[in-house]
């Protein structure tokens, strides 16, 4: 029972009031002795009092309690009156309460994203508070968490690990939060059973190490065998995509992603893969283009098709070139002089264009604007000029065509030009795009996504991005694991073994770790509407045999052989999930006090 205490005021007879009563408090002056009696009654009968001006009221009761001699105040009773040390709006939570606050926050976040896990996970609609109330539909953990405004500090830690997971490996952003949350949920039970957080932490550490070793023992590395490795990549891509909106056409997209990543030849620079979203058509119409597609239009009166193109990629001002020496300005005293200077400016531009033409090119791509005048000049020379290609586009184009990005044009012999077989204007849906095909170096490529609506396309891009990230990381670290709850099961089994070997309280924590690991297959099954208890138990029994490949086959709703089903995951992702989740759980567990500073006051500027 909790009584919302009134603001109290006592007579000066109090033993030692530390602060003189505030004006506001004295306004609401209740009958001193009566409230005091009520308070005393509450304390004596064990009723908890909240919202109380602590340092005074408690002091009084304490004084009275010691007078009555018969009763000692309850344990939560602040024994001594404490001068306030923090600012007015700041709050301080200690010990049990602090731990509870962080557990509650972390578990709430976990429960929030839990339902998106697995192939049958559901999506979330996020509506922004900004203008337009934009809507995002997603099942990507990092995207969901990024858009939340959270006040609970422990929850912020979880959001942070999800973000890092996204940056580092790209996938597993939901799993990492769920695992951390489950670890904390288990820890909460242990804390309730009077096991010290430090003991739990050391148990978790041992368990995490053991789990990692278990995974390391079971990894498959097909680095040597290119054919097999490619099929591994295919499987990983399909597994990643199967939980996303693209799952219907996952084979198609997996092929796209694998092809794109293989072209990178080991580089992790995903910038080189351009994703163009064009609404219309269906997801299946999406395709990977070997060449390069630039989302720009060809200038007027310029050739629409060039074979054996020589391309100059430039980053230069093609408007009126400024004189950059500071303070220079044009000041003239007659119209004719204005015309003269304008003429000179034009002349300068003409010269520049001439220089550019001197490179012997037939296509000119510029990052900045090209004004009408130079454009006209280019058209006259029969050169394709593309203006305002964005920076990434320029960089990619340079990569693809093997040219270099030029900004000055004085020595044409040393500038490397880009080449491609054919430049033409193509139509996708209703838009015209410029297509460069037959390029020399095939590092960069373009994926054109088609889909029914912007939301679908956005989500498709996110999903594809996840797959690309995972693949590009896997190319560098070629170790592969099976999926579908198999790694969790393997880890849980080893951790369980460790728990049995470990003496002392730590073994409880290790056991809890294994339970937390098992929560992931459980959630996957739950989300698919399967009987998780039954399935997980079956799976566990299967795993009792050595070298088992069993996992949860969500599609058929039974335990299946993951190797046969072709469900794989990258080792790097699983390892990152395991390590960051443990680290985050450890961090939150170590906290025994939360101090929240007073929010910064915003000055209202009218």
């Amino acid at each position, binding site marked *: 029972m909790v009584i919302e205490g009134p603001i109290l005021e006592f007579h000066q007879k109090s033993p030692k009031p530390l602060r003189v009563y505030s004006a506001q408090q004295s306004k609401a002056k209740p009958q001193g002795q009566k409230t005091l009696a009520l308070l005393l009654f509450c304390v004596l009968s064990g009723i908890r009092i909240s919202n109380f001006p602590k340092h005074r009221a408690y002091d009084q009761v304490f004084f009275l309690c010691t007078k009555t001699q018969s009763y000692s105040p309850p344990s939560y009773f602040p024994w001594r009156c404490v001068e306030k040390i923090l600012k007015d709006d700041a709050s301080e939570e200690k010990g049990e309460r602090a731990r509870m606050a962080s557990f509650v926050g972390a578990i709430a976040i976990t429960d929030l994203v839990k339902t998106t896990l697995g192939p049958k996970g559901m999506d979330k609609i996020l509506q922004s508070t900004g203008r337009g109330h934009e809507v995002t539909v997603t099942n990507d953990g990092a995207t969901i968490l990024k858009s939340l405004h959270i006040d609970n500090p422990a929850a912020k830690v979880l959001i942070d690990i999800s973000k890092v997971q996204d940056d580092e490996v790209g996938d597993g952003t939901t799993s990492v939060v769920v695992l951390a949350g489950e670890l904390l949920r288990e820890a909460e039970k242990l804390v309730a059973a009077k096991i010290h957080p430090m003991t739990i932490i050391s148990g978790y550490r041992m368990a995490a190490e053991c789990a990692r070793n278990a995974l390391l023992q079971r990894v498959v590395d097909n680095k040597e065998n290119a054919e097999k490795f490619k099929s591994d990549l295919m499987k990983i891509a399909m597994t990643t995509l199967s939980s996303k909106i693209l799952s219907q056409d996952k084979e198609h997209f997996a092929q796209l992603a694998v092809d794109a990543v293989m072209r990178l030849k080991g580089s992790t620079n995903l910038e080189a893969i351009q994703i163009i979203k064009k609404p219309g058509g269906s997801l299946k119409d999406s395709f990977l283009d070997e060449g390069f597609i630039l989302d720009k239009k060809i200038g007027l009166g310029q050739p629409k098709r060039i074979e054996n193109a020589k391309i100059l990629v430039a980053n230069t001002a093609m408007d009126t070139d400024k004189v950059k020496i500071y*303070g220079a300005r044009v000041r003239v005293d007659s119209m004719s002089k204005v015309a003269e200077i304008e003429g000179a400016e034009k002349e300068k531009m003409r010269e520049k264009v001439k220089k550019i033409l001197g490179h012997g090119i037939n296509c000119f791509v510029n990052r900045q604007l090209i004004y009408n005048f130079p454009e006209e000049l280019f058209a006259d020379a029969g050169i394709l000029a593309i203006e305002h290609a964005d920076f990434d586009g320029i960089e990619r184009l340079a990569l693809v065509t093997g040219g270099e990005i030029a900004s000055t044009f004085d020595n044409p012999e040393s500038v490397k030009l880009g080449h491609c077989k054919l430049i033409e204007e193509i139509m996708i849906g209703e838009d015209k795009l410029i297509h460069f095909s037959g390029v020399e170096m095939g590092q960069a490529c373009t994926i054109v996504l088609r889909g029914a609506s912007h939301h679908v396309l956005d989500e498709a891009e996110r999903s594809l991005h996840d797959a690309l990230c995972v693949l590009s990381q896997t190319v560098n670290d070629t170790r592969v694991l099976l999926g579908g709850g198999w790694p969790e099961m393997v880890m849980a089994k080893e951790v369980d073994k460790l728990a049995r070997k470990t003496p002392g309280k730590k073994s409880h924590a290790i056991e809890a770790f294994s339970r937390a690991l098992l929560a992931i297959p459980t959630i996957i099954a739950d989300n698919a509407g399967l009987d998780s208890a039954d399935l997980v138990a079956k799976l566990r029994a299967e795993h009792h045999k050595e070298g088992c490949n069993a996992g949860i086959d969500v599609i058929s709703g039974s335990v299946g052989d993951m190797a046969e089903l072709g469900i794989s995951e990258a080792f790097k992702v699983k390892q990152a999930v395991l390590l960051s989740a443990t680290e985050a759980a450890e*961090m939150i567990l170590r906290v025994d006090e939360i101090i929240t500073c007073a929010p910064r006051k915003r000055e209202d500027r009218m």
Partner: protein
Amino acid sequence: MALAFDEYGRPFIILKEQEQKTRLSGLEAQKANISAGRAVSRILRTSLGPKGMDKMLQSPDGDVTITNDGATILEQMDVDNQIAKLMVELSRSQDYEIGDGTTGVVVMAGALLEQAERLLERGIHPIRIAEGYEMASRIAVEHLECIAQKFDFGPTNIEPLVQTCMTTLSSKIVNRCKRALAEISVKAVLSVADLERKDVNLDLIKVEGKVGGKLEDTELIYGITVDKDMSHPQMPKQIEDAKIAILTCPFEPPKPKTKHKVDIDTVEKFQTLRQQEQKYFDDMVQKCKEVGATLVICQWGFDDEANHLLMHQNLPAVRWVGGVELELIAIATGGRIVPRFQELIPEKLGRAGLVRERSFGTTKDKMLYIEHCANSRAVTIFIRGGNKMMIEETKRSIHDALCVARNLIRNNFIVYGGGAAEISCSIAVEAAADKYPGVEQYAIRAFADSLDAVPMALAENSGLQPIETLSAVKSQQIKENNPHFGIDCNDVGTNDMCEQNVFETLIGKQQQILLATQVVKMILKIDDVISPSDY
């Protein structure tokens, strides 16, 4: 508030707006101050030692910090009370001076205040208490010198240093790989240390962090990392035997500082100006090339044309490098910072064996490593970790470890940790107390009692019975006359800190006692608090 009245019954106004101020005086003021000081120390008490807990702090802007570093906790707590602010200052000055033991010093001060309160209740004058504390602290500091041991280490034998750093790191969240981090810290300090002058310039050690990877990936780089990439995407990503021009002038046409105008009124002028501008760019790049630079590091930006010219001349460049980093690069590579192109000469170039660009993760994060520098005295500790808070906390922990290593180089005496030094001091002070006649004797005894607070908190945080454990260790120390016995926090099975390799620096400990005593004295001397009442 007490008022004085003149013979007509009118009150004397002494303070401005007297009635709006609150005033506490005498014993009441002292007690209020003491209770505030103790409240602060109580917050930190649970963070002490290897099993100490962390605090989660939410800043006014909503950022979360998780730490168990005393100085950081107090700094971020945003305290309001004046006495509490004094305690914050206390922790901070320990941090500046020593770098480690910021929690211990506050716990110690809290204990001293607690003891003082009891003495005040018995009617002992605060000044006498303060004097007694002063005497006792002198005894304790002298005693520390007696029990301190000299620690021999050299550039080859770094084991003792590593052990001491490990003691510091064991109380932090990074204790999972304390060995690796301690080694990194010691190596970093040794590589910048001037062993002859016994001085270490910690500014030469840069601690950088990047989220991602795991803590074990943390590495020591003999060189500098810069969170920048090459200005042009097609510049080479790796340069061997780089000669570096370090510029603080922009690759842009000059901007005279005096106010002037160039008026263009004829076509000729327009053309000459344009040519001049082009020549200027050419000259700048040519100048760099002439002196033999193979890498240009610039504090400012440069425009696309300059960028391309550099690229063209095969001169990789980095732009927008911060001032501090620029200085470090200059120190590391032995180059000079050049503020003007005219002053660029071959002698001013810095040298580095290897400059390379490295990318991380799936985002386009790139960093520039400058390694194998001519002057290897600038090093970087590059921290990796699961999340932002982890990195921040690791940074703080490494800072502590670095400070400890530095202190040992300055003064290679150590005392034993785990509360052993405090217990030993407490015994010494207790014994000395009887020799002092007068009221101070009581204060000295109280001081001895409060020295016990640190081991007591250690035992409490480790889940041991505090009083039982402390008294057992104390009697063991007296019986065997060996100051190495401390609290066995990690449940290793032995009390001997010498065997457990738990060391702390002598100056750190001395400073703790001195600083704590000073602040307590200051608090005790306050007998009147006048503050504008906010209600």
